[in-house]
């Protein structure tokens, strides 16, 4: 369990709210396993590591309206680590953007639920831009934040990145430019689960010391446990109070979080459970 919290963040979140989000996130984990098992391909590790924060975003942080999905005033959420899109589909169904039946069509030919986010079918948070080619989402989110600044609009832009994609040079281009433009309406969130396809992130291409690097790039940096929803909500509030610069939330997470045999196991980055494994995973999650 990564409990690295290098900074005290506000923990003013209402315990009842946090309990509700924890309960929803638990159900979302079940949906993720079920839809990936059915699809027979996809990425459970990074979906499960992200789901606590994605749940908190959808059901507390983001201004959005499932009944008016294209509402101009909605907050934008770009899922740069597009392979974690099952996490977004799960919350989309819970929020009412799509039906629960739709979840059964993940990766099926003709389904809008593509293997990576596609914006064309619904203006839902997480599907604002097409992603999946890693390293591009923060730039797109920056463009959205710039547009909001130009228009004097109050909506905010959030971008969730994976740790592996931090190895892409384009991410560092965006890390350089967003502070230049004073984008205090932009919040980047790193789902730092420490694993990627070829192995542990610190062996494939180490990011550390990450906090120092980001601070050197003139971001406001907050480090939390990404499974601690109260800490995440506190970090989001702190980001909103920062002026003149963007905020980067480093969220330490566990790949495959919630399913014992997937936790911190690289092989579950992009593998789906067989029927027996699915049964075991669901039994653990439904406890």
């Amino acid at each position: 369990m990564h409990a690295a919290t290098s900074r005290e963040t506000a923990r003013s979140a209402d315990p009842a709210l946090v309990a509700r989000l924890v309960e929803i996130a638990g159900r979302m984990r079940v949906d993720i396993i079920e839809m990936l098992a059915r699809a027979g391909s996809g990425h459970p590790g990074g979906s499960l590591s992200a789901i606590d924060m994605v749940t908190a975003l959808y059901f507390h942080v983001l201004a959005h309206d499932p009944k008016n999905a294209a509402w101009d005033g909605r907050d934008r959420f770009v899922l740069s680590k597009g392979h974690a899109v099952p996490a977004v589909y799960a919350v989309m169904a819970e929020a009412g953007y799509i039906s629960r039946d739709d979840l059964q069509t993940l990766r099926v030919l003709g389904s809008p639920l593509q293997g990576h986010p596609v914006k064309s079918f619904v203006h839902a948070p997480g599907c604002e831009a097409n992603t999946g080619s890693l390293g591009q989402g923060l730039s797109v989110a920056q463009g959205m934040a710039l547009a909001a600044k130009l228009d004097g609009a109050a909506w905010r832009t959030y971008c969730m990145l994976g740790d592996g994609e931090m190895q892409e040079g384009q991410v560092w281009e965006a890390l350089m430019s967003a502070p230049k433009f004073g984008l205090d309406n932009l919040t980047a969130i790193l789902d730092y689960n420490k694993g990627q396809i070829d192995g542990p992130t610190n062996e494939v291409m180490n990011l550390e010391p990450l906090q120092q690097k980001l601070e050197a790039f003139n971001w406001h940096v907050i480090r939390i446990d990404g499974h601690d929803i109260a800490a995440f909500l506190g970090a989001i509030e702190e980001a909103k109070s920062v002026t003149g610069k963007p905020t980067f939330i480093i969220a330490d997470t566990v790949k495959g979080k919630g399913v014992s045999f997937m936790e911190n196991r690289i092989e579950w980055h992009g593998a789906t459970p067989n029927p027996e494994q699915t049964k075991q995973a669901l039994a653990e999650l439904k406890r």
Partner: protein
Amino acid sequence: MTSKATRQAFGEALAALGATHENIVVLDADLSKSTKSDLFAKKFPERFFEMGIAEANMLGTAAGLALSGKVPFCCSFAAFITGRYDQIRISVAYSEANVKIVGTHAGVAIGDDGYSQQGLEDIALMRAIPTMAVVQPADDIETAAAVKYLAEHQGPAFLRLTRQNVPRVHAEGYEFRFGKVDTLREGTDAVIFASGGTVGNAMAAAEALAAEGISLRVVNVHTIKPLDVEGVVAAVKASGNLAITAEDHTVIGGLGGAIAECLSENHPAKLLRIGVQDVFGESGAPAELVAKHGLDVAGIARQVKAFLGR
């Protein structure tokens, strides 16, 4: 004869449009003085974003601006901007972002700096991306009209421009018809399809060949994608079923490739592709390079005559 670089006409047109098209924003990657986007920047600094030497981030940022209602013109040399292919493919086109990708200094005619700076495969790259329009104007008048069209057109587009001055081939009042070819000169022995900075030389070559009794039709293809299939086929039928393409780009996948695909599918005809013949560019004076690749007036005339057996 009036002569102007299409990048200059682009910069002037964009700066003029800024006043009436408030959603236009412009991004550049440390080349605004060369791409001429600085003309917009001077008039509308709040809508101009200097992105530094980081074209991938520039394209992604443009996509985000477009997805939030802006009409970004994203500028650099053709070689550099289309070199960020995956950002154009995923963040721009696949995301249905209304971004206008502007590539200046196209072709060998930029000269001395050599291959790394010469956009020689950019049309081929952009043409392969679904939904991407590819527009290459032939002179200043056409450029101004194309820029206005693209500012109002919904969808991603690549605008390919020259560093060098090119002669004016249109009269004032020219109507830019997106997706249509322009017949600049009638002729019956063969048709030469030309685009961008090569159109003026194709016209001069046709003039020179007329003196030798060869009647060459000249068709300007400013919209390489979507290609005007009907217009291309009609021009070939009216010109002895002999077709020639001329472009400052590799003959693979550019105008020559597009016309070859069009004809082989719709009206098979003998075709000569004049352009860069699957070789890298190199340093040299612009005129020397244009001559080396057979894109000057004499080179075009020589190749046309050989093709016609004259």
